[in-house]
């Protein structure tokens, strides 16, 4: 599945700062959750976003979708700068950009039937659709994501975590968007269910030509699913490359350490890995520097 080369999403110099204000006239400062992040996502491509907790992964996801608009920078979606859209225009744009959230237990309205939840996408963006038409469309979506349509009248608490995530995915694809931000969509699920949901996401990508921004801390899943991967560290991208290039030849010390922290499913090898890690204590990683293309499509932050 090779992705074509034009970007559907183009993020430039995106920053998100939170003011830290001293409450009695102290000097105001800011917390830089995300600083000067740029990347493109091509049509039909999955870009992985990895990094430790607090590195700004979710902040980027929510800034790109304008759920939590960025402090600075541009997010061009199909040539339109989302940051400059009026709230009303942005609401219309949401038909083309969808989000799948991390916790399918929290992302569903407990007092709305799951059929109504999925149907809401049509109510908002396809006012011309009649009631029967919406029901049929919801039934079709339920089947597409592997749920029985007769469950549409049920409420979220009657479903398992995997089923709920399918419901969320059904709503996300209802309007045939071109771009989906998947913010840790499998982190709250059992391992066996994770595989099903990831495969569903892949099938939908092939079918609908979707682009994904796949946010995850599960490095192996990211390699399996993503065409390219961006490594985030302290709110900045430190390395961005094709998946295989990044995993086989990590250049930035943080990437190396991140990949080195993945446990090996072999007790002997794992013990050796942990022993080696303890033998050589981690040296501090220097901050700063610019992204430099060290190999075709392989960008690494390098101190100038």
């Amino acid at each position, binding site marked *: 599945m090779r992705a074509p080369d034009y970007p559907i999403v183009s993020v430039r110099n995106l920053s998100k700062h939170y003011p830290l204000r001293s409450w009695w006239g102290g000097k105001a400062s800011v917390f830089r959750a995300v600083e000067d992040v740029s990347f493109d996502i091509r049509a039909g491509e999955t870009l992985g976003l990895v990094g430790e907790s607090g590195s700004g992964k979710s902040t980027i996801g929510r800034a790109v*979708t304008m*759920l939590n608009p960025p402090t600075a920078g541009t997010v061009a979606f199909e040539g339109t700068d989302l940051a400059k859209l009026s709230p*009303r225009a942005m*609401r*219309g744009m*949401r*038909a083309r950009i*969808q*989000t799948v*959230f*991390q*916790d399918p237990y*929290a*992302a*569903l*309205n*407990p*007092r*709305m*039937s799951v*059929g109504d939840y999925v149907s*809401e*996408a049509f109510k*908002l*963006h396809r006012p011309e659709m009649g009631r*029967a038409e919406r*029901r*049929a469309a*919801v*039934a079709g979506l339920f*089947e597409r994501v*592997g*749920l*029985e*349509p*007769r469950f*549409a*009248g*049920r*409420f979220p*608490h009657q479903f398992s975590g995997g089923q709920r995530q399918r419901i*969320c995915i059904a*709503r996300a694809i209802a309007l045939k968007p071109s771009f989906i931000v998947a913010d840790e969509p499998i982190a709250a699920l059992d391992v*066996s269910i994770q*595989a*099903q949901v990831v*495969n*569903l996401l892949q*099938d939908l990508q092939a079918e609908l030509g979707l682009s994904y921004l796949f946010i995850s801390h599960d490095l*192996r*899943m990211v390699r*399996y699913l993503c065409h390219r991967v961006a490594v985030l560290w302290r709110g900045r991208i430190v390395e961005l490359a094709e998946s295989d290039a990044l995993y086989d030849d990590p250049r930035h010390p943080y990437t190396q350490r991140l990949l080195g922290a993945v446990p090996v*499913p072999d007790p002997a090898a794992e013990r050796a890995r942990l022993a080696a890690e303890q033998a050589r204590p981690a040296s501090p990683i220097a901050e700063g520097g610019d992204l430099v293309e060290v190999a075709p499509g392989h960008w690494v932050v390098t101190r100038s």
Partner: protein
Amino acid sequence: MSGMDRDAAALLPPPSVAGGRAVTLPREPGMLGAFWRRLRARRSAVVGLAIVVGLVLMAAFAGWIAPYDPTATDWGAVRAAPSLAHPFGGDEVGRDVLARIVYGARASLGAGLVSVALAVSLGLPLGLVAGYAGGWVDGAIMRLTDALLAIPFLILAIALAAFLGPSLTNAMVAIGLSATSTFVRLTRAQVQAVAAEEFVEAARSVGNPPWRIALVHILPNIVPAILVQATLTIAAAIIAEASLSFLGLGQQPPEPSWGAMLNVAKNFLDQAPWMAIWPGLSIFLAVLGFNLLGDGLRDALDPRART
């Protein structure tokens, strides 16, 4: 994990046979049925519901239940002890106490329901706006509410009723206005709690405008808390109406109200204690009924609670 591949797709449940045909989606017994089951499982809630329904029926069909006109005087029954002719006895001008209790339910329940309806219809929108809009709107509404909350409920009701003039309608308005601030506060707190949930962000992400998020996504999730508070406030409003009537600010003579009956009865406690006992017992029963029902609702309306 690296061996994981498309075979996992075989784990997907097979698509049902409905295929391309139009599929009808039956409505399953959803939240209402489960709620009713949970309410019935609680004896105190059922008792409360029975008391409330009984009192409401009594007030609605007062004309058929009461043995006498509640304002008709009978010189032979002045301060008469309970007897077959007057089961609850007679009052200071010979009116039948049972008839006055039955008709008095109208004033008490009416005051409870109308004043709380007023409080909710004012407090809920204000709280919704304050909680969801935030900013200076929130600040303005909440400072006003705080100012009202600083005055004790009954004192405020008495002051408002005195200002509006003594009548049952004015007493209802006074009680309703005094209870409004509670609902503003409660609604605002509930809205803020629900608005922080991820499904509200999910609602934004699919393109819901703010008014639709507030009404379709947040409101249904705070209704249970409001309903419970409303039921409990009805009990407080019944007491408030009785207090206002006791002070002469509510129901005006000769029309009956439990509070007004107590007001007169206090002068005859040693000669005709039944004049005080029956209205007192009625107030007690009504307040108990609404409180039990409110507690039962609180438990039964939690969607995560199991039966």
